[in-house]
């Protein structure tokens, strides 16, 4: 279970990296589209998000960011907490709840960044925090696994 915990911690960290990458990829595409004389208005966004009629390919980055961030990452964070109950990583539950809390905060900062842009800025800062906490959780699990091996303890596969 510690291995599962470790993999999930790093997976969530990787997801944060994916989120940053697809967002900038999408915005870069938007810049190129506008620079080429393309017009973007509210309806363009509605069509692209809801109707799947993207004006440029990189718009997919913004879509992936939204779906990943609002569905997949919260789901992973919830699973991560459940795994932590079984993983016996020292302070593993606390770190998992830390990750879940930062994910929830991240979703709200993202959504309310649509109303107050400054919250969008904090969304960027919180991403770093989330990444850091997820990586530390993964590193701690690795250490715990090594310590177990040194002590000759073998994790039972079944619970």
């Amino acid at each position, binding site marked *: 279970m510690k291995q599962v915990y470790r993999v999930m911690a790093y997976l969530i960290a990787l997801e944060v990296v994916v989120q940053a990458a697809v967002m900038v990829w999408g915005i870069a595409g938007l810049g190129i589209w506008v620079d080429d004389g393309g*017009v973007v*208005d*509210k*309806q*363009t*966004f*509605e*069509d*692209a*998000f*809801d*109707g799947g*009629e*993207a*004006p440029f390919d990189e718009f997919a980055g913004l879509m992936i960011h939204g779906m990943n961030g*609002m*569905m997949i990452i*919260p*789901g992973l964070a*919830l699973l991560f*907490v*459940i795994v932590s*109950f*079984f993983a*016996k990583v020292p302070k593993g539950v606390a770190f998992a709840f830390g990750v879940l809390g930062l994910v929830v905060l991240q*979703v709200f900062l993202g*959504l*309310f*960044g*649509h*109303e107050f842009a400054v919250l969008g800025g904090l969304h960027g800062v919180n991403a770093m925090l989330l990444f850091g906490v997820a990586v530390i959780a993964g590193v701690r699990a690795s250490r715990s696994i090594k310590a177990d091996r040194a002590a000759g303890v073998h994790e*039972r596969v079944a*619970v």
Partner: protein
Amino acid sequence: MPRSGRARSLVAVAAAVLLLAPVAWMWWTSLLPDTYDVAEMGYADYGGGPRAGHDHHGGGVPVADLVEERRGPPDEEATLTVRTDGDRYTVNGTSPGPELRVTQGDLVEVTLVNEDVDEGTTLHWHGIDVPNAMDGVAGVTQDAVMPGDSFTYRFVPVRAGTYWYHAHQVSHEQVRRGVLGAVVVEPRKSRAAPIDPVAVLHRYGSTPTLNGREGRQEVDVQPGDEVRVRVVNTDNALMPIWVTGAPYRVLAVDGVDVHEPGEVSGVAVKLTAGARVDLGVVVPDGGARVDFGATTALVLGEDPGGDARAPREFVDFLSYGTPADPGVDLTRPDREFDYRIGRRPGFLDGRPGVWWTVNGHLFPDIPMYMVDEGDVAVFHIENESGESHPMHLHGHHALVLSRDGEPATGSPWWIDSLEVGTGETFDIALVADNPGIWMDHCHNLQHAAEGLVAHLMYSGVSSSFKVGDDTDNHPE
């Protein structure tokens, strides 16, 4: 103190169950029944008014009976045939469908024929306050019209103005794909042949069009001509529109004339999704151009040239025009309702996501606004959802009283479609003078499909139709 492995596992399982149980419960309770009656949906909100007469289990007039009272042969007749064309729809072979021009006060009869739309279709008369059974909402005011079937709408448009028709069955798909067209109700006492071109704005795929065509189009007019441009926004998002080369007036909003509209220039009008404005332009020597965003334009006479440059300032209808008697006393409301729009994570019919809420609740656990005929009802609309919402009320026009606490000081501002920006609040008032069950929803039709739909329900009215997967009716 180390616990035994078994005890620890039990604690872990219990913790996991504790965490998952509320999520599973939320998922379970979000599932919609296969068939349901919108009148039984959510919870009744009486807005501080009496409950008498609101026993909707006790019968009452069925929605299906709320038809046009005037009998006899119609003054004007039309047939609109909806058919599929690839991944689009057409009405009588084109999209937008034919422009219907009728006269105020005439009995209008329109027969909708569904040629081959498998999921069925309907027509809703957006902005025309028709009798409830003629409103065209599948599962609420009629059953969806299936392929090979037809449905006849009969109504008397009381108010002159610019309106439109569109499907209200799977509307988030069918409207986008073309089941729509303009309706112009001409005033009974019309002055000599006005020049009043219609401008239907719609995006097919990602292509912006004006009356179904891309780019700029010309209207053959002479300098000095007075032109009334009737603009209809059939899309899901607001569109800034303005006039290049001449000053203009906003003659009407949502089919209601503005009282003493002032001349403006260098400013734009934010045209809400589903809303209409009539712009008045006196064509100058060099011609004028009505720009719809930076996408399409209607050229009046000569093209004044230049790029479409969006003004940074906008006409504010809260203070536009001059005050006048609105014709009804709305100062002592019988009921006051909250319509607070928010957003939170949860499940919508089992689907996880971040969904719209009304007064903190997710669809379908949202208020049913209950009124008696003759009531004056005030709605306090508030948007804390992070996105703007073009709110549309069926069957009624409402008067805007204030925005963000600032009272309206201009012409009476009557709306059927109102853009409520994020962080904004509006107080609007209406007279409950059209019995039935009426949708009150977001006209960003994708948002409606995501649950931003409430209803206004009259006492003494009972539902006649049902919605859900086991029926053919899917109004959103």
